[in-house]
Structures are given as C-alpha cells and as structure tokens.
C-alpha cells in the first residue's frame, strides 16, 4: 500500500538540476529549520527539567519541609490555634522543639575544630518526619549527624569521636559523640537525636583495656601522674564500676557496685585482701568487704607512683584470671571539666589531649544520660509538604508573617518561586510550541506555493502517464513526513546538544533531560513532533487536494517552464 515508485520518491528529495547536480540544498534547509525549531523547544524543556529536578530534590528531602518557627513577640495561642487548624486540614503538622535549640556548638575532632555550627536536637516526635533514621539505636549510640562536607573539612571519618561544647559561652567540652554523615543533602548541617547539651545531661567516657595492668597504667601514669586528673577516678569491669581512686573527701560509692556483684554476673572473684605492687612499693589492704566497692586511697596511690618509672609490677586482686574489659571512666560533668583550673585555653587543651587517648585504648564507650528532656514550647517546628501548591504556600507565608512569627521565609519563598517558574516555563513552552508551529505552517505553505507550482508540470506528466492521485499523494506525504522526522531526530541530536551546551548545560544533563522528556507520557518534544507531523500531513494533503487534484491534467502539463 505504501509502495512508491523509487525514482519519483528519490527526485522528491533531490531534484535534478540543469547542471546535472542534485538539489540537496532545499531539503537540507527544510530539515534544518525543523531541527532548529525542535532544538528551541528542547532548550525550553531543559529549563523546565532543571526546575523540576531542583523542586524534586527539594521535596524529596523531608527535612527541607521542616521550618523553625520562633515565637518571640507573638501571641503564641493565636499561632498555635492557626497551626492546629491547618493541621486538622492535613496541610501541615507541627512539633514542639527543645528549649534553646537550635544552638551553636563547637566541635573538636582529632585534627580539626569548628567554633560555630548550628545544631538541631530532634526528639522522637520527629520520627514521623525523619523516617530514614532509627531514633532508638542512634540515641543509644550517642551519635552526632554531620554534613559530609563539614566532615571533610574537619577530617572526620564515619564513627570517629568528637568533643562538643556549647559555643561562645567560654565553656568546657561536656559531651563526646560518635559521628555519622547526614545522608541526604539538607540545609541542616548538624543534628542529634537527644538533648545532649542540656545542663542536666551528663556524659561519661570509658577507656577500655584488655587487661588490668594496662588499665592501672593508664590510670596511674596518664591520668594521675601526667594530668593530675581530679578525683574520684572510677574504674570497672565490663559495664559496671567496681572501684574508685579517691581522696577521703570525695568518696562516692553510691554508684559503684559491691564486689560480690561481679562474681554473680561475670565470674570475677576478688580476693579478701589485695596488693598492688609498684616498683616503688605496694598498696596493701588487709581486708576487703565484698559488699562494698574497692576504694583506693588517692594519697597513698600518689606516693607510690610519683617517682620515675614506678609502674605496676604485680597485683593480687583476683582469685581467678580476670579476663578482659577493664575500664577507667571519666565523668565529663564532674571530673573531666577540671573545675579548679582557671585558664580556659589550658583546660580545653588538656581535655582535648586526654580525649585523644581513645585512640590508644583498646576500645571506648560513651554513656550519655540525656533523658532530662525539657521541652518548652517557645520553639515550634512546622512540617509542611504541600509546597507544590503555590496558593496555599503563599497563604501560610502571609498569615505567619502577619502573626509576627520569625522563620525561614527566604527558603519558603524560593520554593514558591521555583514552582511559579515551573508553571511559567510550562506556559512559555506551550506558547513557543504554538508560535513554532504557526511559523512552520507558514513556511510549509510558502514552500508549497513555490514548489508545488514548480512541480505542476511533473505532476501533470505523471498523471498523464497513469499515476493516480494516491500514488502522488503517497510520495509527497511520505516525503514531507520523512523530512519532518529527520528534522526532529536531528533536532534532538545534535542540534539540542549544541544549543544546550551553548546555553550552559552539560552533555550529561542534556541527555538526561531529553531521555526523561521523551520517556515521560506527556512531553513537549513528542507532543511538538506529533503536532508537526500531523500538521504536515494535513497541510500536504489539503494543498495537494487544492492545487493538484484537478481533473484538467492538460493545464498542469502546460506549467512547464
């Protein structure tokens, strides 16, 4: 049915000229016009795709939908009432934040330090928003989530430990946390899942050693002798404390377990008497009460180790082989802050220096007590996910502004603008398609008027020698359709690429945008192509019908020359 006479089809594209060359110029120009027109449409779709990616990226990250609302000088009841109304309509939901969060913190890693980072503390209320995190696990592990770029800057690897303090208050480090990267890029650079910096929170660091002498060595040589670490210095086995090195004035045995506990739980049997022999002498105790803790006299201990080379030589403390996992515990709130030390710089340097021993111990544990969550509702977090609704977003923006709520309106405005740009871009592209189409139709009509009249003679001769109208229609329709298809394909590659690169897009983006546009069910390029093809078929058929399908073949033949 679609069979056409090959010579006639060939000459539709490449007319023989008087100088015996074939006219390639006309089809190339025609195809180029379609290709350029297609690439202009493509360029507009690149812009749309760029908006779309930015919006998708923004909306795919739930955290970008969290807005901090600061209710400073506002009628909080009024605001809450408004938010509750909006929440009831399922437009948004809001959470109450911790007092004084977000707050600026300073972070010290082994090789880096940053003075001010805005840190957020999220309670389990946020589990519905930050759905990709296991709140329970990360609270137990005491994790600080950091922006990967910031991690790089501070030379921090995943699971490294860092010291933290509240910035700008001249304070000491009060918290140590293990670092994890924030997986999704977000405007939030730093957060943790608990109130680690509250005055009631406390952190304890346990330096674990594989054997008892190593633990005593760290206790005596490093903490007592080198750093003059404040007492009490607690030590323990596995997960529990069994002893304390303390002066008579600060004996605190209330949190230390009786020695008999360790026999029951770990099979660790203490002798009824003990002896720690240093090179310089022995620390000897005649009687040990199994129902109380092992308390070492700090003054006696200090005398034994104060001379050079006074290391632990032997110990008689256990009836059986004690195994591993002895630790020394530093209490960040009570002892690690060296309260008697006046000079802050020296104090911080000492804290940092001691902390670095976590790398030479056999393992380390951080135990934070941060269950003293004080949540006061001066601070609200709004979770809003209807950002694609421009009107609603504008309405909320205006209302909260009117209610004098302070929040990140710039960010909110930018997503509204992005959505507006997307809609405006879609409208532009529709107009562009329409204008292109009209220009193309005019161009096609001019081409018909000029070329078809030139070809009246040819068509007349063909009809005269028995070619039916259908045969001629097939050649012309198929020929023009091929022109358009080739033009469209060239428009996609390389014209779109050239024009895209000229406009500043990279090739990978252009490929992605084109692929996405072509594969999506409703897209402007395919739509434009289809409309172009349809209009070509219509224009060719109508013009052929109007100009060629006349019964007076003799008139057509007379058009020669």
């Amino acid at each position, binding site marked *: 049915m679609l069979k056409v*006479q090959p010579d006639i089809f060939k000459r539709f594209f490449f007319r023989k*000229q008087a100088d015996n060359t074939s006219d390639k110029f006309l089809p190339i120009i025609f195809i180029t016009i379609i290709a350029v027109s297609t690439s202009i449409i493509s360029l507009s779709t690149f812009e749309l795709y760029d908006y779309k990616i930015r919006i998708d990226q923004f909306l795919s990250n739930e955290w970008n939908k969290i807005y901090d609302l600061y209710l400073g000088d506002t009628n909080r009841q009024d605001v809450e009432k408004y938010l509750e109304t909006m929440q009831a309509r399922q437009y948004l939901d809001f959470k109450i934040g911790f007092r004084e969060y977000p707050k600026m913190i300073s972070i010290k890693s082994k090789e880096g330090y940053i003075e001010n980072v805005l840190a957020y503390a999220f309670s389990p209320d946020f589990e519905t928003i930050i759905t990709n995190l296991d709140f329970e696990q990360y609270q137990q592990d005491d994790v600080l989530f950091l922006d990967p770029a910031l991690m790089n800057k501070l030379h921090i690897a995943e699971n490294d430990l860092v010291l933290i303090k509240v910035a700008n208050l001249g304070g000491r480090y009060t918290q140590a946390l293990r670092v994890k990267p924030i997986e999704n890029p977000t405007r939030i650079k730093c957060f943790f899942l608990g109130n680690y910096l509250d005055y009631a929170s406390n952190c304890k660091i346990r330096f674990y050693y594989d054997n008892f002498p190593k633990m005593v060595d760290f206790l005596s040589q490093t903490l007592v002798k080198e750093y003059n670490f404040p007492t009490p210095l607690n030590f323990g086995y596995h997960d529990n404390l069994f002893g304390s090195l303390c002066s008579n004035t600060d004996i605190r045995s209330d949190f230390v377990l009786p020695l008999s506990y360790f026999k029951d739980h770990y099979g660790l049997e203490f002798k009824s008497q003990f002896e720690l022999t240093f090179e310089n002498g022995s620390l000897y105790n005649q009687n040990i009460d199994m129902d109380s803790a092992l308390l070492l006299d700090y003054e006696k201990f200090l005398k034994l180790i104060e001379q050079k080379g006074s290391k632990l030589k032997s110990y008689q403390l256990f009836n059986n082989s004690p195994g591993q996992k002895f630790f020394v515990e530093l209490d960040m709130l009570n002892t690690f802050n060296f309260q008697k030390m006046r000079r802050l710089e020296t104090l911080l340097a000492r804290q940092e220096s001691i902390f670095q021993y976590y790398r030479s111990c056999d393992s380390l544990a951080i135990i934070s007590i941060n269950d003293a969550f004080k949540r006061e509702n001066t601070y609200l977090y709004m979770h809003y996910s209807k950002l694609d609704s421009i009107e609603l977003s504008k309405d909320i923006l205006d209302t909260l502004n009117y209610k004098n709520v302070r929040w990140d309106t710039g960010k909110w405005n930018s997503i509204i603008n992005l959505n507006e740009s997307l809609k405006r871009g879609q409208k532009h592209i529709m107009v562009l398609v329409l204008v292109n189409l009209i220009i193309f139709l005019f161009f096609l009509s001019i081409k018909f008027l000029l070329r078809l009249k030139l*070809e009246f003679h040819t068509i007349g001769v063909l009809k*005269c020698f*028995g070619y039916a109208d259908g045969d001629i229609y097939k050649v012309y329709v198929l020929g023009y359709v091929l022109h358009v298809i080739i033009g469209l394909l060239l428009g996609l590659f390389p014209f779109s690429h050239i024009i895209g690169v000229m406009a500043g897009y990279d090739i990978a983006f252009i490929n992605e945008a084109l692929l996405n546009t072509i594969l999506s069910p409703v897209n402007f390029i395919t739509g434009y192509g289809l409309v172009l093809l349809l209009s070509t078929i219509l224009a060719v058929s109508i013009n052929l019908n109007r100009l060629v*399908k006349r019964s007076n073949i*003799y*008139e057509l033949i007379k058009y*020669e020359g």
Partner: protein
Amino acid sequence: MIEIHFPLEKKFQGGDKIIYSADQKALKLNSNYFYYFQGKNGVGKTTLLNIISLLTDFEGGVKIEDNTLCLNKDKNDKSNHEKSNIRKNHFSYVFQDPHIINIYTIRENLKIVNPLFDFDKDMSLIFKKIDNLKITASEKLYLQTKLTKLIHEKNNSPFYLSGGEKQLLSFIRAMIKPSNIIFADEPWAAMDKHLKEFIEQELYQYLDNKDIFSGIRNRNDINHLHKKNTVVAIAHIFHHSTEISAIGNHDKNYNYKIHIKKINSGKSDDNSLELIRFSN
C-alpha cells in the same frame, strides 16, 4: 476502440465553453486504424483530443473499449482512480511540446512510464533495430546519433537536450509505455524531416505491433488487447490535399464532420473539423 457520444461540452473558467456535435449521435474510432482530427488553427482539435484522452474534464460520453465514461451529471462518472487506470493501461501520449520532466534524468523520464524498461539493454536494442527501418541511411545515422546522445547522457537532466532530442525522447517515452491507443497532438509541428519520417513510420507499425518498441511495451502484458486493438489518434493540420494522399491508405468512406460551437465572452463562433481515417 473509442466511441465518442455527442454532444461533448468543455467548460472553461469565466463561463467560456466549447461544444462538439456531429450529424451522427456517435462516432467510432475502431481498432487498427489511424485517425486524424483535421482542422484550422485554434478550432479546438487539441481540446477534443484532451477530452477523449481523458486529460481534461468534460460533459458528454466517451467509451473506451468496454468502459463507458459518461460525464453528464445525470449519469455515472468514472472515478479519478478508474480514469488513471485507463490512462495507465491503455493510453499513451505524444504532445506538440515534448513535456519531458527536467528534474528527472533521461533514464528516469523513460523508467517512470514503464517500470520494466531496462535503459541500457533496451536502448541498445532500439539502436540496433534502427538499422532495419525502411528509411534512408542518412536518416538512420541521424537517429542513431541522437540516440547515442540520449544513451550517453542517461543520468543527466534533459534540460540541455535540443528540441529534436527532446522530441525523440518524448516519442520513445510514448512508444515504450504499455498502451493500445496513442494520442498525438500535432506531433510533427516542431520536428525536422528525418524525425518526422521515423515517427510516422513507427506509428503506422504500432497499429500492427511491428514497431521497434513493441517488445519493450508489451513486456508488461497488462492486457492482451494491447497487441490487437490498437488505435492512433492524431490532431493535425493538413495544409494541402496532397499531404493526405502521401500518408497512405486513406479510407475515403470514413470522413465525418464535427461541428464546433465556441462561446467566448458571450459571443458564439461556429466552426468544424474533419475526422479522417487511414489503415495500415
């Protein structure tokens, strides 16, 4: 066989028209004859030939073989497709002007009328057969020279061919096309003597399928009628009665007058033309 049913009417733009009538209700152009429409310049010979060769619209009746083409409004008109089929299977044309398509090559101009035409092989065949024609040596040389040029320039545009070469090409095109009726509109009007002799002879031979193109034409075998029921219809002006006697077997019993009424800008003008017949 062609049967012309009078009156025939051709309307032009602006209301002008031309009406053909005859004393007889119908005139038959029978098979194996050579027909001339003889009349003065501008009398309407070409228009009548265009009507019966289906190159223009008209009102009236023309019967081709077993197909009746009735174009009166109250009768059935043949569709364009059927008219194309008749032109395709039965008709061939030689015009006063060659009407060669300049945007095709010489080879393509021939190929489009007969897909089985093998340019190199068939043109060599024609070249050889010229030797057997009953024409003078100088006429043969003349023809073969022109043919050689066509063969040599087969892939070129015919744009720069001379008038004679174009006429020869146009004639070859008409003769190789599968057909059993040839319409020729003053084919010798712009032709030199050598070419006229050749064409005249070949058209006569066409009636018996003995022309040098018959093998190529009939290769298609579209209709067995091609080989038998052949007609040549020519619009031509004979300036002297001696010209008629020089053509050949003039059938003096077949001599009809066709009356022509031309209405041009409201003015009526009466004329006539003669239909004369020759046999081979």
